[in-house]
């Protein structure tokens, strides 16, 4: 367990790019540049769409903040958040409670901006991830949500007999996965 596990974006990205380019050089070198420029353009499109979606949710979240609704919500969730994330900071607690609620509601795009803020607030400048940030990252990675709306919608469209019969397996799977994630973070990041 003590052996250093070198899994970071640096190596993963290198592996993806170098592996693909090596293959393309021998099979279809003409595809490489067109595929890269095409997907770079797509990324800009996605970022612009994201700006629109963030506009909606950051606006709505700020309305909820100004009216005191976020405050009330985070007071309710505070004991749990304190235990899981080991944070005392009120603002961080607020951001985490928005993140978790938005995830449960299945609005991933509303969950991202507050998560970024919370991660930034836990950053102590040492370059190492804090326990709170690790916990937030892992919980978000586990995709906990109450109702998998996207999937139910698509299944209904394609004529499923009962499109929502995946709710139970989805909830069971994500609850168990999240529990495992929380447990592993607690093991790996001992309290300081």
């Amino acid at each position, binding site marked *: 367990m003590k052996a250093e596990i070198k899994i970071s974006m640096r190596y993963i990205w290198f592996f993806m790019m170098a592996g*693909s380019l090596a293959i393309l050089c021998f099979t279809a070198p003409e595809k490489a540049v067109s595929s890269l420029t095409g997907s770079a353009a797509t990324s800009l499109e996605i*970022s612009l769409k994201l700006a629109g979606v963030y506009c909606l949710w950051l*606006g709505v979240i700020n309305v909820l903040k100004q009216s005191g609704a976020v405050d009330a919500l985070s007071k309710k969730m505070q004991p749990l958040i304190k235990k899981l994330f080991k944070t005392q900071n009120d603002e961080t607690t607020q951001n985490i409670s928005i993140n978790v609620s938005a995830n449960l509601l299945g*609005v*991933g795009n509303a969950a991202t901006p507050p998560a970024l803020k919370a991660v930034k607030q836990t950053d102590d400048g040492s*370059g190492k991830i804090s326990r709170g940030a690790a916990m937030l990252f892992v919980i978000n*990675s586990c995709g906990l949500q109450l109702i998998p709306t996207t999937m139910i919608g698509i299944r209904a469209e*394609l004529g499923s007999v009962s499109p929502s*019969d995946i709710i139970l397996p989805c909830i069971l*799977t994500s609850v168990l996965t999240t529990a495992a994630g929380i447990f592993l973070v607690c093991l790996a990041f001992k309290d300081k």
Partner: protein
Amino acid sequence: MSAAIPMVLLFTFVYAFVKKVNAYNAFIDGAKEAVPLALSLFPYIAAMIMAVELMRASGFYNLLSLAFSPLLKLLGIPSELTQLVLLRPFSGSGSLALVNEIFLKYGVDGYVGRCAAVIFGSSETVFYLTTIYFSDTKIKKLGLALPIALFCCLLSAVLACLMCRFF
């Protein structure tokens, strides 16, 4: 069920009105952050999408799927789903398209189709989160956080295929 989000939005505005908060100004203030945030995420999104697209174009993905298929089968994941399980942590839109293909090919209500739906519905785009969550911080060392997140991603696929046998 589909009314959940509109209800939250309605609550947002009614609650602000009752509390005598200027929802219009508050919305504008919050929304101001949107474009700078999305722009700051752009290079991270671009790097990831370019790599994913390149892997698809080169056939690297198919190669990896062939290599991983026996291992995933051992864990109870049918080989029809190998590509989805591999792509899920990298690309949300890509794996959504793949789920659609699986639905059309194997049926929405069959075992494989339901597994695909549960895998998609109960997991996240882990590498996308990895690139953006720490984009605005000095955090460089993720420790075991990424291995744990990836383990959870695999676990959710295994559990999804298991759950679909019973429910």
